[in-house]
């Protein structure tokens, strides 16, 4: 109910908003203004300095940002991973030793591996089946929109949506979590507290990722299926291929590249995502994964050495996936 204090608070909230927006608009305007000035000044230059100057002005800021924001930090993180918690003493490979031998980190690595295998395979598989089903259906734009929708929202939002689905209540009380209600209606008198039940909770968390990524897989694969020339499908049908046979020997080989790109893309996202675990369990109850452990070590425990070592491990795990992915996409683009 709006009380006097609330109205006052609302007032100050608007003032606060106005100030922040003014600052933001000012920053953007200032940024564009400075650029225009530089453009104007550099545009005056003539003769043999004009081209080097153009190169410097156009590319310089980007290069500087990349060096300061990515290249130097990349090298420094590798360096820090060989130092102790506050980077005062070199410790050799002991941070990596810690990561590979500690009991609790074993659990983290095992969970991460399960995520890496299960979530992408299920999301891509489901996406493929849905893409086949929706192909040539009437009103497919609507299905695709609704299935793709989770991809537009944040993983934090998605996690809250699903945390509510998994909400636990004593079975004697009216249920508010959909999953418990469903279990009870199906005759399971006393369903567990889902989020706390290890190892089931890992898979419940993966469902959030699958929920988000399936629509992505479906939309991409559906486009690939549509791109298969009609003559090929037609020829296969004339040769007597039907249903599953057609799917196995024509559809899948024709979209193989796309299929693998989708799979690796979801794998990369899965490997790097820490939002779901952080929002739903905070890494407790045996659900911790690499990306969230890296964050906790670095910014909660303030152990820079261990955090950096975990980041490097993550980096090494991602490299082959991204490299493969980028090469494939590039090939496909050249092909067109």
């Amino acid at each position: 109910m709006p009380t006097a204090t609330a109205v006052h608070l609302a007032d100050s909230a608007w003032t606060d908003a106005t100030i922040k927006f003014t600052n933001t608009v000012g920053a953007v305007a200032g940024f564009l203004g400075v650029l225009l000035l530089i453009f104007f000044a550099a545009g005056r230059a003539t003769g043999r300095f004009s081209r080097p100057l153009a190169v410097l002005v156009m590319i310089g800021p980007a290069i500087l940002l990349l060096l300061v924001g990515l290249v130097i930090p990349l090298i420094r993180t590798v360096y820090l991973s060989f130092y102790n918690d506050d980077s005062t003493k070199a410790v050799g490979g002991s941070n990596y030793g810690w990561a590979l031998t500690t009991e609790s980190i074993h659990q983290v690595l095992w969970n991460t591996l399960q995520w890496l295998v299960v979530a992408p395979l299920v999301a891509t598989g489901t996406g493929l089946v849905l893409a086949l089903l929706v192909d040539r259906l009437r009103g497919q734009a609507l299905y695709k929109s609704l299935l793709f929708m989770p991809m537009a929202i944040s993983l934090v939002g998605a996690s809250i949506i699903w945390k509510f689905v998994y909400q636990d209540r004593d079975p004697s009380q009216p249920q508010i979590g959909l999953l418990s209600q469903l279990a009870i209606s199906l005759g399971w008198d006393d369903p567990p507290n889902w989020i706390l039940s290890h190892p089931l909770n890992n898979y419940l968390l993966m469902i959030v990722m699958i929920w988000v990524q399936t629509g992505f897989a479906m939309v991409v694969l559906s486009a690939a299926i549509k791109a298969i020339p009609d003559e090929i499908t037609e020829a296969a049908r004339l040769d007597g291929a039907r249903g599953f046979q057609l799917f196995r020997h024509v559809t899948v080989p024709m979209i193989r590249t796309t299929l693998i790109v989708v799979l690796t893309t979801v794998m990369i996202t899965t490997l790097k995502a820490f939002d779901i675990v952080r929002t739903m369990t905070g890494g407790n109850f045996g659900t911790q994964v690499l990306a969230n452990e890296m964050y906790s070590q670095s910014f909660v425990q303030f152990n820079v050495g261990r955090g950096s070592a975990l980041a490097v491990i993550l980096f090494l795990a991602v490299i082959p996936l991204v490299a493969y992915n980028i090469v494939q996409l590039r090939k496909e683009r050249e092909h067109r």
Partner: protein
Amino acid sequence: MSEQLAPAPPPPGAGDREPPVKAVRRVFSNPLASLLMVVVTVLWTIPTIGLLVTSLRPEEDVSDSGWWTVFSDPNLTLENYHTVLFEGGFGVSGGLMPYMVNSLAISIPATVFPLVLAAMAAYGLAWVKFRGSDVVFFAIFALQVVPLQMALIPLLQLFSGGAHIGSVTVIPAFDLSGTYAPVWLAHTMFAMPLAIFLLHNFIAQLPRDLMEAAVVDGATHFKIFRSIVLPLSAPALASFAIFQFLWVWNDLLVALTFAGGTPEVAPMTVRLAQLSGSFGGRWELLTAGAFLSLIIPLIVFFALQRYFVRGLLAGSVKG
């Protein structure tokens, strides 16, 4: 195959004069496929509907009954939204309003900055040819491999402590804490490889004749960039802008690291992640807060779907 020469049997259900494409379509659009799709789509949408419905129910109803009972006993209110925006109601003072403002104040510059700087770099690399421009482009392209996690600690140290080589200060420590600047900067830096790569693909393919004509007319590179390249690249710029805006709006990692958790700078995602951990019991408020953070992405998604999907497919390897 043995019946290679024999006329193929007509596909089941196909009439004599029906063209083959239609026949295929008919086979696939069977009612079973439709039914399955409807079931799956409903299944996919239910969790979000549950969130929306709960955010619209009064407190007592939410804690006393499941949201699905609303269909037999409709009782809706907007009060949760008022509470969560302006009053707080999570046992803490202040609502989500400042965080919502922060989300916008972070996302807009963090979209404009990389968009403009990357377009400049893309043009420079594609049209102001210089020795080594291919190498530079490939290096930028390769940087897409680096996960954000690799850059967080050193960048945070840089923002808070400056950079030193021995005892020589290379970059002084800026006192940026409590401002949006570190978040803007971090997002801009992390966006560069993908943005340059995407925009370069587009800008490099603008018609050569047009560029040469402009040079003959005496236009400088800056003039060409502003009056030819930017307008013609609008579709690519729009795709990237939408992708980047949503990426920043939905981001938790960069915001958590560089903005901290204060109402001065932290965006919605950071606050919601905190609340979800500590105040999970007040579902009518948490759901209202979550839905507030979803509104903008949903509007962008349904209004600009075509651009959105294109940008998203291109950007799927980011981060």
